[in-house]
């Protein structure tokens, strides 16, 4: 059983007891514990169930590489799934729940299921199972997969994360990622040059694992050297140290993300929970250490089987042991340190199995001297299944697993060698080389990630570079720090020579399968990827089925695709693949390492950009008035526009109907300030607009307005609006609300990059002006009343300001520009005043308009009024695949112009195809409203056995004017099929029958706007 030891535990404070809960059970730990060490102290060996087979799983590691111990942390609005017990610092009141089990951790139905179904769950099971037979999908596969799939539970969607997050920008000469002895030495060497240095360490403490492994640096015990060096660095003005901060990713041109966990260990302390560091560093030193590899033997996933160095961590750092009788299996010298530590802690080491016939070096001699039984050339054949280790069968390494001897043990420590953490080196293109002696990939210093100047910007230090002995690590780190500082532009310095203790270690031996010729029964129980439940047999099956590329094998077997991204499984998996393919490991290569190194919170990515400050809100000058007068808001780009003004007792739909009728019968006001207003000015402005619009703008007379269409070079309709010619050199182009910035950019692009010798300037004056549409039969009366009240003003009569004319002047005493344009079919003036006068002008219109029945109307009424008139709306009738010809807008496309954007594209064969769907009006036979986006079906079936589609609804509304549903749509051969009734199946199975009609439903002759 796992238990707390009487002594040991350099990181815990036994005087401070902490209460926490696991699956509702109250447990006790100490300050300084991680959740993982505290669980072990309480003999909670079983911490979760595996993903596919729901096998019982325990702790394998002690750091962020841990694949199994994922828990749900916290409750309510602070609940978070998939948190690693090993990286969770214990705090009072911590509440954790295990995952992937039903109904309980101890007894799980899924485990029973997996025994029944496991033959279906081999490599590629997604591809093999989900296709045939079809009915099985719904009734067998889906219920099973749904029950077993997914890791933790998603938080309650009704709750919002109670914590806050922030971003932080930092610039430095040298960034050191990793605060172990190598990182600290690299920082010290770099800082000595005067470079500005930032050091990040993901854990709460400095020094990495050297204080656990032991050794002397510059005459001090490692722990004392760490304390001294941290104190020295803290005292330097040019050095910043941050613990609990992980280097998450290395990106282009020296951009690095750091992930600081400020209050995870102390909830309720206040301030942001996580902080995202957005760092620009001239040089980055990755001192990220190395990760121990598991050994692939049968039952290597049984709770109690643990990495040897991690077991040592638990004993030395937190004073807990996963067992009282431990068996150790190794292919290298490092695991001997675990034997010594366990022995010193009073834990019995029942056997140390060394796969090497020749055994280990200095450490092996010390272990033997302690009386521990060391057996060379021996291996684990199998750990008996169960919720914890009970029996271990041992055999010869160089065999098939026969002639076993059974040994009783309650924990197993394994070591398959060490792999440098190369993730950060690789994120931005650093390449790796295969190190035959250590059987690992390590960074190739000659192929580093390069920056904007083509020179390397990442340097590795310590075990992250490959060397594993303390002496080599310190020498490498000192050199790395000096090299980085020099590359960052600091003066070159001699590399410090660091004195350390030395241990002679014997050569490790690559062991990819234990025993070397394990039979299929054993290989089917030998786990490579614990989190995704991928076994040796799965990778071998994939290779037999023809998967040769490591990237394909990864996806086919899901090896390394879990949240730990294969930190433990990567090398072991590809070694098995290489072996099965008969290839060399370096030829098979690794999969791609992608950031983040370890999962980071969505909150940290979002930072403070959430809620009201998620993005800036654009408000027109009349926003507050709308808000105070019942506006039901609609987001339009970054703007908020009133959808309708809802009065007390009304539904939104009621309000829209009232606004429509009132505007048609009396008088409506629309806040049109959001419409884009672009000034295009210069001697070549007319020529330029002739290229941008499909019709001719250069012939427009000053004082006149013209409706125009803009297309992309692909020929597709992109925007529309009314252009007013202000004077010979100046035009004002109206764009759609959403199009202002886009069209402005479009104009700039063509002016700057194609017609850069044309004399034209463009200015976006959208926000300089407030614009109000005064619409309805009483519109003129209102303006004339305002002018009369002001003692004169602009002549707004039919003759004084005719349809499609504009004029500058005064209205009601306001300096205004009025356009006689109509998007509703009614008598209509769009009047622009200075933005600062917008609210006063609006107030004047509302006040004077009372006797004429004035009411404001919103965007839905705007839409309905234009649809009744058959006017198109960009984004409804267009979707980036529609050309003006589809919409019957031939009249707005010049045939005389030699060229305009989109002209050549509109001559392409597909664009002149008579089968293109074309705009028509649609009237339901029963007067109901067609569902938005519904498709019309015709005769025959397509290749998938579905009915052929012959059209779709682009706009659909209830028209209060006509008392029925009206719609527009694109229909194949539509204009030639007037009067025909076609079918639109709804989502609920109901078929809507609609007649094809002219898209102009109201005032076909256009008399009303021209009075």
């Amino acid at each position, binding site marked *: 059983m796992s238990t707390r030891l009487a002594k040991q535990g350099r990181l815990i404070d036994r005087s401070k007891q902490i209460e926490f809960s696991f699956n509702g059970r109250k447990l006790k730990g100490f300050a300084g514990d991680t959740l993982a060490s505290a669980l072990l102290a309480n003999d909670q060996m079983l911490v979760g169930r595996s993903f596919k087979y729901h096998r019982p799983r325990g702790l394998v590691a002690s750091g962020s590489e841990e694949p199994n111990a994922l828990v749900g942390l916290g409750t309510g609005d602070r609940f978070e799934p998939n948190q690693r017990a090993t990286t969770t610092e214990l705090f009072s009141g911590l509440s954790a729940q295990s995952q992937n089990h039903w109904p309980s951790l101890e007894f799980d139905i899924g485990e029973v299921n997996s025994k029944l179904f496991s033959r279906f769950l081999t490599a590629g099971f997604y591809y093999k199972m989900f296709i045939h037979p079809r009915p099985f999908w719904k009734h067998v596969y889906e219920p099973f997969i749904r029950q077993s799939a997914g890791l933790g539970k998603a938080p309650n969607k009704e709750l919002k994360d109670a914590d806050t997050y922030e971003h932080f920008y930092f610039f430095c000469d040298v960034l050191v990622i990793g605060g172990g002895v190598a990182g600290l030495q690299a920082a010290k060497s770099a800082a000595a040059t005067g470079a500005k240095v930032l050091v990040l360490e993901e854990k709460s403490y400095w020094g990495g694992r050297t204080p656990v492994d032991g050794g002397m640096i510059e005459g001090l015990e490692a722990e004392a050297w760490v304390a001294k060096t941290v104190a020295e660095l803290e005292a330097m003005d040019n050095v910043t140290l941050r613990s609990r901060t992980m280097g998450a990713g290395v*990106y*282009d*041109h020296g951009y690095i993300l750091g992930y600081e966990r400020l209050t995870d260990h102390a909830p309720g302390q206040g301030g942001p929970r996580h902080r995202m560091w957005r760092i620009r560093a001239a040089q980055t030193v990755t001192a990220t250490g190395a990760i121990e590899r598991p050994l692939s033997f049968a039952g290597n996933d049984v709770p109690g089987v643990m990495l040897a160095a991690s077991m040592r961590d638990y004993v030395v750092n937190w004073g807990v042991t996963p067992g009282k009788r431990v068996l150790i299996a190794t292919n290298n010298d490092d695991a001997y340190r675990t034997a010594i530590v366990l022995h010193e802690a009073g834990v019995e080491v029942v056997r140390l199995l060394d796969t090497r016939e020749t055994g280990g070096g200095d450490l092996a001699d010390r272990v033997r001297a302690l009386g521990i039984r060391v057996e060379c050339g021996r291996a684990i054949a199998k750990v008996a299944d169960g919720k914890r280790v009970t029996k271990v069968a041992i055999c010869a390494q160089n065999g098939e697993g026969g002639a076993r001897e059974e040994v009783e043990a309650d924990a197993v420590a394994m070591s398959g060698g060490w792999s440098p953490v190369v993730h950060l080196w690789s994120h931005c293109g650093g390449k790796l080389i295969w190190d035959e002696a250590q059987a690992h990939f390590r960074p190739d210093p000659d192929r580093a990630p390069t*920056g*904007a*100047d083509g020179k390397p910007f990442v340097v590795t230090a310590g075990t992250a570079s490959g060397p594993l002995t303390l002496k080599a690590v310190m020498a490498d780190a000192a050199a790395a720090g000096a090299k980085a500082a020099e590359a960052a532009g600091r003066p070159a310095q001699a590399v410090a020579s660091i004195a350390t203790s030395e241990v002679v270690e014997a050569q490790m031996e690559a062991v990819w399968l234990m025993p070397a010729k394990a039979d299929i029964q054993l290989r089917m129980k030998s786990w490579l990827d614990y989190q995704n439940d991928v076994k040796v047999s799965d990778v071998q099956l994939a290779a037999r089925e023809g998967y040769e590329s490591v990237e394909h094998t990864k996806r086919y077997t899901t090896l390394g695709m879990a949240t730990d991204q294969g930190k433990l499984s990567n090398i072991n998996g590809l070694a098995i693949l290489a072996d099965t393919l008969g290839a060399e490991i370096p030829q098979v290569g690794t999969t791609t390492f992608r950031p983040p190194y370890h999962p980071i919170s969505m909150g940290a990515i979002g930072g403070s950009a959430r809620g009201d400050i998620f993005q800036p809100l654009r408000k027109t000058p009349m926003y507050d008035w709308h808000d105070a007068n019942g506006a039901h808001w609609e987001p339009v780009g970054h703007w908020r526009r009133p959808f309708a003004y809802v009065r007390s007792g009304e539904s939104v739909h009621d309000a829209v109907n009232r606004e429509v009728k009132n505007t048609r019968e009396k008088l409506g006001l629309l806040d049109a300030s959001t419409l884009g207003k672009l000034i295009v000015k210069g001697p070549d402005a007319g020529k330029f607009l002739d290229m941008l619009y499909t019709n001719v703008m250069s012939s427009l007379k000053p004082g006149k307005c013209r409706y125009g269409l803009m297309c992309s*070079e692909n020929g597709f309709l992109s925007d529309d609006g009314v252009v007013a010619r202000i004077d010979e050199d100046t035009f004002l182009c109206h764009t759609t609300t959403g199009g202002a910035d886009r069209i402005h950019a479009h104009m700039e692009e063509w002016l700057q*990059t194609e017609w850069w010798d044309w004399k034209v300037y463009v200015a976006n004056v959208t926000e300089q002006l407030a614009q109000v549409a005064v619409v309805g039969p009483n519109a003129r009366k209102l303006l004339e009343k305002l002018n009369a009240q002001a003692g004169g003003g602009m002549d707004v009569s039919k003759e004084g300001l005719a349809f499609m004319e504009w004029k500058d002047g005064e209205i009601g005493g306001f300096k205004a520009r009025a356009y006689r344009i109509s998007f509703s079919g009614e008598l209509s003036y769009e009047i622009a005043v200075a933005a600062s006068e917008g609210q006063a002008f609006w107030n004047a219109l509302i006040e004077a308009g009372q006797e004429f029945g004035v009411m404001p109307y919103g965007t839905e009424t705007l839409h309905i009024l234009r649809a009744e008139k058959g006017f198109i709306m960009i984004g409804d009738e267009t979707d980036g695949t529609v050309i003006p010809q589809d919409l019957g807008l031939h009249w707005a496309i010049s045939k005389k112009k030699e060229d305009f954007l989109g002209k050549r594209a509109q001559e392409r064969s597909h664009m002149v195809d008579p089968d293109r769907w074309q705009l028509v009006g649609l009237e339901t036979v029963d007067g109901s409203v067609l569902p938005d986006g519904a498709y019309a079906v015709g005769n025959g079936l397509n290749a998938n056995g579905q009915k052929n589609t012959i059209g779709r609804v682009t706009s659909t509304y209830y028209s209060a004017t006509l008392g029925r549903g009206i719609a527009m749509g694109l229909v194949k051969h539509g204009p030639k099929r007037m009067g025909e009734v076609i079918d639109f199946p709804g989502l609920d199975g109901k078929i809507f029958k609609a007649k094809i009609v002219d898209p102009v439903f109201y005032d076909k002759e256009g008399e009303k706007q021209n009075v």
Partner: protein
Amino acid sequence: MLILECPYCGVHAEETELHAGGEAHLKRFGPGASDEDFHDYLFMRENPKGVHLERWRHVNGCGKWFHAARCTMTLEVFGTYTAQTSEPPQEIKDKISAKRPGWTWREFSA
């Protein structure tokens, strides 16, 4: 995230300040062009592993379009230059040639 120097305002702009505009020095084909020429102009783009000439706009800055000569593999930037040209200036071509002897890109080469 790339950093490119805007040749107009001189700012070393981070990618968040910039808008990528695809391949540089496209020759526009309009009415009268053959189907093939027009198709190539609209759709066919270089996608080299190596030297690439491309358009960027300093959209959250001075608003100007400019060109960058960059290595798509190593992310090395050989230089940025004006958008008001239909070929890279000799100085930029020389810089590329010094670092990537024998380079070619469409009709341009070392």
